[in-house]
């Protein structure tokens, strides 16, 4: 019981922080603790190279694709109650129906077979970070969490709340078994994610000039898209402009200088 109280107050503390946000350039990510974040990012990256990437590689090569699909479906199904609760909290009736129907459709096989997607009910993850955004909370400062990866103050608070929303934490009385189960679930989730995006993550790293900055902006953009449930920005729907940074775009008509040699020094 005491832990619940601690979690709640931590969440409230984190939420309070969301209210204040410094000014940043259009489109930039507010990152006041960049040096610390870069350090954690580097450690995470090292863990990825040394542990996660090789494990994911073996997983991908040894476990057949259909089995990996079953694992992925099951993990997603385990999160259904959290998706449903957050859809409700966002007042998103469509999302609530969608996620509830998904849960019902996939429950006969304990989520291992995703028959819902075939029925037009594809995955639609919702978390408390998104809920807070719908309620009007700003991102707050960017935070790279150890092992969990990119986040921000709002979404970190969301993670804590999602944890307490998860019914698995209230099943049975063997606290140790529950803890081991939750850890195993995260670890398998991470390995599966890395395996599924194996080449992509390697390419993302190989083709960047600042991997940290690249991941930071992708995180922000992707979260914004998820919060809007992948619909176009509101200005665009109203027939105006959602161009944002593109307001300053200057098209060029002059052909680019063609240098004779393609060699690189």
């Amino acid at each position, binding site marked *: 019981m005491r832990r619940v109280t601690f979690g709640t107050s931590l969440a409230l503390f984190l939420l309070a922080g969301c209210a204040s946000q410094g000014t940043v350039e259009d489109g930039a990510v507010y990152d006041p603790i960049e040096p610390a974040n870069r350090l954690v990012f580097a450690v995470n990256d090292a863990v990825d190279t040394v542990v996660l990437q090789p494990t994911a590689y073996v997983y991908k090569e040894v476990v057949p694709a259909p089995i990996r699909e079953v694992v992925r479906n099951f993990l997603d199904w385990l999160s259904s109650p959290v998706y449903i609760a957050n859809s409700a909290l966002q007042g998103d009736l469509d999302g609530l129906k969608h996620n509830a129907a998904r849960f019902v459709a996939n429950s006969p096989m304990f989520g291992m077979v995703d028959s819902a997607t075939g029925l037009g009910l594809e995955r639609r993850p919702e978390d408390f970070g998104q809920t807070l955004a719908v309620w009007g909370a700003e991102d707050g400062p960017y935070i790279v969490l150890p092992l969990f990866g990119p986040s921000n103050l709002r979404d970190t608070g969301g993670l804590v709340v999602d944890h307490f929303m998860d019914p698995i934490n209230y099943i049975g009385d063997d606290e140790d078994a529950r803890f081991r189960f939750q850890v195993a679930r995260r670890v398998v989730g991470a390995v599966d994610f890395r395996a599924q995006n194996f080449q992509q*993550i390697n390419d993302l790293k190989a083709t960047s000039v600042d991997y940290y900055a690249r991941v930071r902006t992708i995180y922000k953009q992707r979260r914004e898209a998820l919060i809007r449930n992948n619909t176009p920005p509101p200005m665009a729907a109203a027939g105006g402009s959602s161009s944002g940074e593109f307001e300053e775009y200057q098209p060029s008509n002059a052909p680019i200088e063609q240098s004779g040699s393609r060699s690189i020094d």
Partner: protein
Amino acid sequence: MGSILRALTLIVLIAGGLTAGPAAPARAASDAGAFVGEFADKAIALVSADVSTAERRDAFSKLVRDYFDMPGIGRFLLGRYWRTATEAEQEAYLKAFTENMIYTYSRRFDEYGGQKLVIDGTREDGRFDVVSSRIVSPNSNEEYRLEWRVIETEGGKKIVDIVIEGVSMSVTQRQEYASVIQNNGGKVQALIDALNRQMAGLRSSGG
């Protein structure tokens, strides 16, 4: 995060060649959707063409230069640093950026797996036309949402950005470049060096 990463690589895949789906709307010259479909058609034709890798990459480079506003994108990615750069730096940067972008895209040529691009529609967004489309894979029910930002220039329509599952390629690169310059005392030369170093690395790794 999963979809972000997959999405980002998809840009590379698209560049590596996608088909315009049969659902592409009528090919009116003024239609941005048709323009995007035309680019995708030509890219897929290139993938299927029976030519050497070097020839294909040259053809691809020309295709991208024809359909994308490369100098405009380059300037946009540099943001406010464009004005602080010397003329020589601007030129060196544009060269490095263009080579880099085309090279990273064309690396993926061989991984094309029969995906199709289905054009869904076009909406106006200020000075731009935004074309919505989906990438559909032949042997999976996964789809990716893709938006193309197109502008009308004196030289005709040009693509200025691709947004994959909410992640804009141009905005991402712009933020990344700004970070490199900021962390090097505002020097544009640092970015040029980083781009050139990266190209050299990618080439030597045979990518």
